[in-house]
């Protein structure tokens, strides 16, 4: 493979890497925006308790998002190993 081909291949790899990063970021922002939805009519169904007498859907969502964000980072690192 000559230098030009090698550079061309590197740029294709970089484009793929950047695409993957933006996909992860996009998915992340989608999940993140659900917090705003809690304050709209679309999120009102999370105002009642789930799986307990007092733990509301909104609280489950916040705790779940924290865990999900860490899991997404782990997956990202795994995919790019």
């Amino acid at each position, binding site marked *: 493979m000559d230098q030009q081909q090698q550079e061309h291949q*590197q740029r294709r790899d970089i484009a793929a890497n950047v695409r993957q990063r933006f996909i992860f970021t996009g998915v992340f922002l989608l999940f993140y925006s659900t917090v705003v939805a809690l304050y709209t009519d679309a999120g009102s169904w999370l*105002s009642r308790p789930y799986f307990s*007498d007092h*733990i509301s859907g*909104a609280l489950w969502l*916040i705790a779940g998002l924290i865990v999900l964000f860490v899991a997404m980072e782990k997956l990202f690192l795994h995919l790019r190993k």
Partner: protein
Amino acid sequence: MSHSATTARSAATTVFAAVALLAALATSSLATAAGAVEGAVEQQPVNTTAIVMFMIFVVSTLGISYWSSKQTRSSSDFYTAGGNISGVQNGTAIAGDFMSAASFLGISGLMFAYGFDGLIFAIGAMAGWPMLLFLLAKRIRNMGSYTFTDVVSLRLQRDKIRVVGIGGTITVVVMYLIAQMVGAGKLIQLLFGLPYETAVITVGVLVIAYVTFGGMLATTWVQIIKAVLLLSGATIIAFLVLLEAGFSFDAVLAGAVANHPRGEAILNPGVLYNDPIQVATVLVSMAFGILGLPHILMRLFTVANIKEAKQSVFVASTLIGYFYLALIIIGFGTIYLLYQQPELFVDGKIIGGGNMVAIHLANAVGGDLLMGFMSAVAFATILAVVAGLTVSGAAAISHDLYAGIICKGEPDAATELRITRITTVAIGIIAIALGILFQKENVAFLAAMPMVVAASVNFPVLFMALFWAGTTTRGAIWGAVIGLIASVVLIVIGPQVWVSVLGNEQALFPYNYPALFTMPIAFAVTYLVSKADRSERAAIDRQNYHDLLIRSEYGTDQALEVAKH
């Protein structure tokens, strides 16, 4: 007049303009914000346990600083500990740097007052870390050397873009320092019965000692120790709260609902905020602000390679996530347990104000011993964060301004190190002065302000320089300047300053955290000005992107040599 002299003068003007603006705000705050503290801060009996624990922390960290001073012989050692920190150590230090007094004291205070809505700040503060890993960590680590300004100046016109970087860094650092120093003053005032000013001066002097002698190495270890102590303390408090409730979080919430004047409403959104746009402004400011915090970005350079840098972010994220999960229990635990203790309230308001509820909770579940421990930890928290900010501010002046602009990248090493240490002392003194001026403000709100500026000035410049080939120096400068002006103007005419500080009846702009609007403005201006830029320099900037692309992804040095300045 030479080009470098003109540029240096512009840098100084930018820096001093930012500081002068803040000083003006501080003065107006002093004049009109009397009574902003929630509840009286009364002198407390001397807590020997707290004093002993605090002294142990101070003596051990000063010992570390002495040891670090022996290892700190160059600017590289001072700014980045020579790049010899491991990923796990660095991640723990980042967590220690970021889990500030605003996180621990401020968010638990907001939850005590408003319940669920206080968590908006927690999820916002958590959200920046995945994006830092996905988008920026690799390219920043591969492109930079000491500061985020190094990263953008590698591609754009060095002198001019450094001025922007210095302005952004100093503005963020100064605003952040205010929040930390206010928290320190209130905490020590409550715990030791010391005058507020004495407390702030104590913090300033200790930080000057840590950073001046030990640089980033001492700062890193102070932050690691603080992170371990804070996470341990938060775990113990959360455990004891659950123990009080028979290990049922549901029972904690039931007790909180029974005690709080708002009842069931505290379990759901809507007590503090009911406007989704207002929530979005907080979330955007917090998440994207992290991506522009200079003292956090600087930590990516303290490790040996990109693998360790990525691991740093993941470790930090995991620890911070764990901390906020514990904070959910602690926050509702304050409502569950503190309302049962009428002696903590004076005229219906809790002693020391909302920022002190976590400390009261430690006393309620663990007695003097745990309160003393958590007080010492909270104090350590402030010291660690202020130390990190001081290193970052010192690097902006000595590395970016002196070495980068005035000496054109070829400074005398000994002089640079000496200037770094002098700058450290100066920043410590400024921090003390600002801490005293801003003592009446809520630390959680103050902590959000630098996030807005970081999201609207530093992040757009960094992102566009790293990801868009069309970015030019002129576009980046205009984007940053407009982003800064928009941020400051909207913060000043927003409720927190226009109403609470200046005493007007109604705010001209309805939101406290305007990054939702100012960040897109900065991006749009950068894009449009860059598109319209037909200068010779613009062609070089665009060419540099392609030349540096391989380096930014693979960390090779060959591309660096072809970049033009």
